[in-house]
């Protein structure tokens, strides 16, 4: 709490211009998951993840619209939205946290860093702590972020009915792949 306060005061003390330079964002990051088994291929990609990273503090937030996950099979997509994640009730999945070792990342020159993320994932109306390994790559004028983590369906109240239990994996593998750009010029 006090840490957040210090950050805020710090942020406020910076000029507006510097503040804008400090943030990186995207609205078309990719989130991919695999929840299949040997019996059934269950994969989907969401090309519309939005994300903001604050370079100075490491604060990191990302969100996806559940309905934007694209499956190969339309019926699977329908079931995913209707029966499993209930997209009408819980339209978004949100991750809010921070990059633990942000201090090591030099945003001024190109480089690649292994980092860790710590935060909370809200999915299907359930919020849980998620720690995940990631990678930040600073390139000319952009920042590439890669994160992977696992989601145990039961933890988020997503049930697998008996008839399809063997076809759906207990744990979904999630991969995030985003290309962030500086937020300069945006309010």
């Amino acid at each position: 709490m006090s840490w957040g306060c210090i950050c805020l005061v710090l942020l406020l003390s910076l000029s507006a211009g510097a503040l804008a330079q400090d943030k990186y964002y995207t609205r078309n990051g990719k989130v991919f998951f695999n929840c299949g088994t040997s019996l059934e291929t269950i994969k989907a990609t969401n090309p519309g993840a939005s994300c903001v990273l604050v370079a100075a503090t490491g604060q990191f937030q990302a969100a996806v619209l559940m309905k934007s996950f694209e499956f190969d099979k339309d019926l699977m997509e329908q079931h995913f939205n209707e029966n499993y994640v209930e997209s009408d009730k819980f339209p978004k999945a949100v991750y809010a946290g921070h990059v633990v070792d942000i201090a090591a990342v030099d945003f001024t020159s190109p480089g690649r860093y292994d980092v860790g993320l710590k935060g909370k994932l809200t999915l299907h109306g359930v919020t849980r702590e998620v720690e995940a390994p990631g990678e930040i790559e600073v390139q000319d004028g952009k920042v590439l972020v890669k994160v992977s983590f696992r989601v145990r369906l039961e933890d988020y109240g997503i049930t697998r009915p008996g008839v399809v239990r063997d076809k759906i994996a207990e744990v979904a593998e999630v991969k995030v792949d985003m290309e962030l750009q500086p937020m300069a010029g945006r309010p």
Partner: protein
Amino acid sequence: MRLDGIAAICLASLLAFMPVRAQELDLLSMIEPEEQPVERVRNAFKATRVINGHSIEMLAGGVLDFRILHRFGRLNDGSYELFGLDQASIRLGLDYGINDWLTVGVGRSTFRKEIDGLVKAKLVWQTSGGKSFPFSVVAVEGITMNTLKFADPERTNYFSSRLAYYHQLIIGRKFSDRISFQLSPTMVHRNLVDSFSTRHDLFALGAGGRIKITNRLAFTFDFFPVLDNWIHDTDYNHPLSVGFDIETGGHVFQLHFTNTRGMDERAFITDTEGRWSDGDIHFGFNISRVFTLGHGKDGRK
């Protein structure tokens, strides 16, 4: 100067008490697009048929739907006929989604050995988000061919006598996650009718709906009152069906009770023999199994 200091402390303490959550939400709201994306409302019904009649749902492009429909005999036939289960009438059908808004289909029914073909097009999508639109509009054109041997081979029989057509417009809305309702004005034209006094054209106003009970179970009904009964004083029975949609992995089972054996529009609008009030009720089921053949998804975004 001193006042400034107090103001700064006040501000700092205010900020300190601001919930962290609000601050977190701010980050993403900074990059929220001004306009909400337009989103097609989907899954108003679990299948492309409510029970007998077409629903506002379409097959996605590249999806083949194999439909197996059964209607048993009447419940009031009694235990000797095992309440109708000894007699089954079927329709086997294949529907294919050319793209997300156009579906073609064929079927073959036991009843009158009828072959039917249809073209179904979604003209207007119900949407939500930035530019929302309150309902969907679907048009269906169908043709049926009776392949029974002609009753009187002696007289001149024309091929066209076997044919009938139906034209249908469906206006429907998914009111909420659970409740969907649609109206479907339908006209059926028969080339050959039983007698001079029987009209070739019949009008019916279909109504269908569903109420979801759980994510995988829904109560459905469809009703096609034949308007000609009131306009021209005819005596058709109105087909009424009630049932449940049950969904498992790749199947949708529709179990229902109905007073008609007809499984295409010509059959159930013009050929409903039973009356609910007399107990002429048939148990029946539809099974839908879909196969994804291609990737014809064109209108997903």
